């Protein structure tokens, strides 16, 4: 049993999905989803502990040794991302029952759970597999499930949002597979570790650079790298609340993981990238994303779209760390994967509770007037998570931004520090807009008056808010794990 943990990580949610479809009962579906999510978290933590004590784990699917067979490989970086995905899943799953009951037609609710399990299986699969083509397959499993999750939203705009995401997501996946195809033509292998070793012997670098370009743009689409983020705001805004919470906390982060894997494990920047100014490109796009998306968020009137644009800006921080390419900056990036995942997850989970009480899926900022009195705990949670989004000391967001600033200073990029602070200031402005409306403006006379969110939803939300604060103080897991992962990525050079 213990030896098969790596494969169980993916097989459990993958097997749960058809089971849920066969039973067709939404009560059973919820229990199965919750149990599977917690099992996944237990396995992910177990794997992380093992990697920390005994080094990377390699699992041969069907006992076919790599590079011929598919290898599941867990190292410091993948263990870190596995924990993030499983943790979010296990917090969102118990929350899902009330949220789905309120937002999705009852006879279709079990399908929503099935899609959720498939999405979870796909995201965990991308992270755990050591095979480039297998990443593509899992990428598509998770993406297809995500398109359906988004399309299940009640507003008809959800359909168009899902369609647009599907087009851009599939182009992204196709570009990725073109890049992998070129690498396969050059090396004859698909195993990531083997690929890395054989790429170092390749003489003709032009196909390798073409592969780099295709993979960067393809994965850039998936992770919503500015300006490839057009699909994200509507997809987040019109999806059912639990889908938004889960996708916002995990999907883009797992894509960042794939990007890190290819840039640092598979390719060797000093050997393969030649004079390609990849650092400058990443820094420029990241800074543009941070500033532009934050400004758009500032003037956005729909709450979910506001935080969706803020996600694009936060992804900018993460990719900025990749562009700076140092131990401190990668630590910051990887920590921010976790911290932003927890923060954005908390915000969307809380908004789901507010949406349930408001009886509407999309809310304007002004409709939150008087939220501080009507839903004090939810409003308080939003404030704390908002502070973490800005990066106030004592919250998770501060820690990762600190490492990014340190990395920028190490390389003497004063203007980057200014850009990071400017984007944080804009974040403070849009979070303040919410706080002002929620606490200082009286509720409209005809506003909904139905008290706090249900206990089940509130517990999940406050647990995530607590994590935002916890990771601001105790950084042994978040920064410690990220540091090891960053060392691993840079160690190959």
């Amino acid at each position: 049993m213990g030896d098969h943990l790596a494969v169980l990580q993916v097989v459990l949610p993958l097997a749960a999905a058809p089971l849920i479809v066969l039973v067709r009962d939404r009560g059973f579906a919820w229990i199965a989803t919750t149990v599977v999510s917690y099992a996944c978290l237990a396995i992910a933590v177990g794997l992380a502990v093992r990697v920390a004590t005994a080094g990377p784990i390699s699992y041969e699917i069907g006992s076919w040794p790599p590079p011929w067979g598919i290898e599941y490989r867990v190292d410091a970086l993948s263990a870190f991302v596995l924990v993030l995905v499983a943790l979010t899943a296990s917090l969102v799953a118990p929350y899902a029952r009330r949220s789905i009951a309120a937002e999705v037609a009852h006879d279709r609710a079990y399908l929503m759970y099935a899609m959720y399990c498939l999405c979870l299986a796909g995201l965990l699969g991308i992270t755990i597999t050591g095979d480039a083509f297998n990443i593509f397959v899992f990428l598509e499993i998770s993406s297809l499930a995500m398109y359906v999750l988004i399309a299940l939203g009640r507003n008809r705009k959800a359909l168009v949002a899902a369609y647009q995401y599907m087009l851009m997501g599939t182009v992204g996946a196709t570009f990725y597979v073109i890049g992998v195809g070129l690498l396969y033509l050059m090396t004859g292998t698909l195993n990531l570790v083997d690929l890395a070793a054989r790429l170092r012997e390749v003489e003709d670098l032009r196909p390798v650079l073409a592969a780099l370009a295709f993979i960067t743009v393809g994965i850039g689409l998936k992770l919503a790298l500015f300006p490839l983020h057009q699909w994200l705001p509507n997809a987040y805004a019109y999806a059912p609340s639990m889908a938004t919470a889960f996708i916002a906390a995990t999907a883009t982060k797992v894509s960042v993981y794939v990007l890190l894997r290819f840039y640092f494990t598979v390719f060797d920047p000093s050997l393969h990238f030649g004079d390609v100014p990849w650092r400058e490109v990443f820094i420029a796009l990241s800074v543009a994303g941070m500033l532009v998306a934050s400004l758009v968020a500032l003037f956005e009137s729909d709450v979910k779209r506001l935080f969706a644009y803020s996600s694009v800006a936060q992804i900018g921080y993460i990719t900025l760390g990749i562009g700076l390419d140092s131990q401190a900056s990668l630590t910051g990036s990887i920590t921010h994967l976790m911290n932003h995942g927890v923060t954005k997850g908390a915000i969307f989970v809380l908004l789901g509770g507010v949406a349930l009480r408001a009886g509407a899926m999309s809310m304007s900022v002004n409709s939150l007037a008087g939220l501080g009195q009507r839903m004090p705990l939810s409003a308080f949670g939003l404030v704390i998570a908002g502070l973490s989004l800005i990066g106030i000391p004592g919250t998770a967001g501060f820690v990762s931004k600190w490492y990014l600033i340190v990395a920028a200073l190490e390389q003497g990029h004063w203007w980057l520090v200014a850009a990071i602070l400017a984007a944080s200031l804009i974040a403070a402005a849009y979070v303040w807009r919410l706080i002002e409306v929620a606490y200082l403006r009286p509720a409209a006379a005809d506003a909904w008056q139905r008290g706090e969110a249900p206990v089940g939803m509130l517990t999940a939300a406050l647990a995530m808010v607590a994590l935002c604060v916890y990771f601001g103080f105790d950084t042994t897991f978040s920064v410690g794990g990220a540091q090891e992962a960053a060392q691993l990525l840079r160690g190959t050079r």
Partner: protein
Amino acid sequence: MSAIAGHYSYWVTVFLMVAGLYILIARTNLLKKLIGLAILQTSVYLLYIAPGKLIGGTAPILANGFTTYSNPLPHVLILTAIVVGVATLALGLALVVRIRETYGSIEEDDILARDIADADG
């Protein structure tokens, strides 16, 4: 001349790739966009399979008289990719059907106009 003739499978691949991407971006009909997507995906099948073929090579079987084999792995990979492509296309078509049911149109401009009308009214 040999650069063109010797690599003609690549030229076909590149043509399909660019044509598919162009249709996807330039058309406003949701169904035509999906056709472009399908062509783009098909070009990838060709990208993998064509180089796997050796002129005069056989399937990888153990038998007397055969020494040259074509690599079977790209075919297997593309079999998977075809399944993924079919699933994506099926989901895309299902979404277009639902959009047609709720909006009464599959033209991007019409749908946009209706959303704007919604926001005003």
